[in-house]
């Protein structure tokens, strides 16, 4: 009977379940971290009533949102209105499916064959991430359009135009790393970063591609519509941009999609530039702890930027993306190509 259940298949299903739940918990954790960090930056304490240090605050928020009424404007296109947050969330989760977060594990000998700690590994993993993030634009465009309200439409169009513009620099930063790593598979890129120079400095690509890292993080922040590039959803400008007309769980889905996009950008940046699950002092099968630490550092950086920097105006934002970031990314690509050819 047990031979009918393939243990590798069960292990994969368990892995998918674990990754999915970790992502959902990560978005809940991000809600808490954002409010706490924001509070301490603003010299106050933040949520401290629900649970120790306010850690259960996201769950209280979710319970409140679930009990709210799910409104729909009458003139809105019903199907598109309903499916827009689903597209946003689905693409946010799907982009994480090719990110490796550890080496193989046999679950302390329970499995006969080691299972790699990722949902799947395709040999075009970087392109898959790029493709799935391009699909995420539709959630925002459809949300803005189908709400049939001028705030939503303008917010949706601005937001998607911003995402498309910064996708170019995003792709070029990815291309530079691919040139250095000579592979499109994220797992191979991380494995290429193992080892140390002079026994002290790890061979991470952030030291080989510092400008590429900066370009990637800037484009990633702009892609996820976070400050300082969050003009399309700024409260003072457009009520709430493309998700003005959404309430209750649909709104929660958009929020979750935004946080999970942040987690994905941070996770991909960790794999590409910061050495993924590699790190000193821990055995390699505990590499996922290092992965989590690095992703948390990048997420803290995200939140810190939001509450420290002022917001770009929309035309300043687009000018920055096209006139400064894109030429910088192209120059980075050319310089990387020259170095790869020169140094072999």
């Amino acid at each position: 009977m047990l031979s009918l259940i393939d243990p590798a298949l069960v292990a994969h299903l368990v892995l998918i379940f674990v990754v999915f739940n970790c992502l959902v918990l990560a978005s809940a954790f991000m809600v808490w971290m954002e409010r706490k960090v924001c509070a301490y930056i603003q010299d106050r304490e933040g949520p401290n009533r629900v649970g120790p240090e306010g850690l259960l605050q996201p769950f209280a928020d979710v319970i409140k949102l679930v009990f709210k009424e799910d409104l729909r404007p009458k003139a809105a296109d019903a199907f598109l209105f309903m499916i827009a947050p689903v597209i946003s969330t689905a693409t946010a989760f799907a982009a994480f499916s090719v990110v490796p977060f550890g080496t193989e594990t046999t679950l302390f000998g329970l499995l006969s064959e080691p299972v790699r700690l990722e949902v799947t590994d395709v040999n075009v993993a970087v392109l898959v991430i790029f493709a799935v993030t391009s699909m995420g634009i539709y959630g925002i465009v459809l949300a803005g359009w189908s709400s049939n309200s001028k705030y939503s439409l303008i917010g949706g169009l601005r937001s998607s135009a911003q995402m498309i513009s910064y996708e170019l620099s995003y792709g070029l930063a990815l291309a530079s790393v691919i040139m250095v790593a000579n592979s499109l598979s994220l797992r191979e890129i991380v494995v290429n970063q193992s080892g140390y120079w002079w026994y002290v400095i790890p061979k991470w690509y952030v030291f080989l591609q510092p400008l590429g890292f900066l370009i990637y993080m800037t484009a990633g922040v702009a892609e996820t519509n976070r400050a300082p590039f969050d003009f399309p959803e700024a409260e003072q400008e457009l009520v709430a941009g493309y998700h003005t007309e959404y309430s209750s769980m649909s709104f929660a889905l958009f929020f979750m999609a935004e946080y999970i996009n942040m987690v994905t950008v941070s996770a991909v940046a960790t794999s590409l530039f910061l050495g993924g699950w590699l790190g000193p002092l821990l055995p390699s099968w505990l590499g996922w702890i290092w992965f989590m630490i690095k992703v948390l550092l990048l997420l803290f950086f995200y939140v810190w930027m939001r509450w420290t920097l002022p917001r770009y105006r929309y035309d300043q934002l687009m000018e920055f993306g096209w006139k400064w970031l894109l030429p910088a990314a192209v120059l980075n690509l050319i310089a990387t190509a020259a170095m790869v050819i020169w140094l072999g």
Partner: protein
Amino acid sequence: MQVIAFYILAGVAVLASLGVIGQRNPMHSVMLLIVAFGAFAGLYILLDAPFSAVTQIIIYAGAIMVLFLFVVMLLNAHTEDDMVPATIGPRTLKMGVLLSILLSGEMAWALTQIGQSAFSTDPGAISSISSVGHIGSVLYSTHAFAFEVTSILILVSMVGAVVIAGRPRRER
């Protein structure tokens, strides 16, 4: 397993394409075409061409369709339009039907001339097709000229699109 996947993906592609030409609302046509592109990408994966699948999603579903969507929203083209052409007379209709039957008959005859052609299962050939490195090296060596000309083509079309659709210049 592959047979089931092929029939499902082919069915989705054909149904979505029928929806594209059959829907009154151009917004829904664009959405259905995106679904069709997803089905095409699945077919490319079945054909051991992951690079084509991913570039299909990136270029077609991620960029071209967003362009279409923006134009549909800009021109407010979400109202109904005529589906039956009003200016086709009975003689043109008969000619059209006759030509379509001729075309489909010719395609069917051409397909019968091929015979049953199975795909090779040689793992070496498969790995050389699906390897992005191989595609890249062939693209940049054998087809380098076409590649460079394509980049000039894109530049020209970009400039052309901006000029044609740009704001009408004020009369001096």
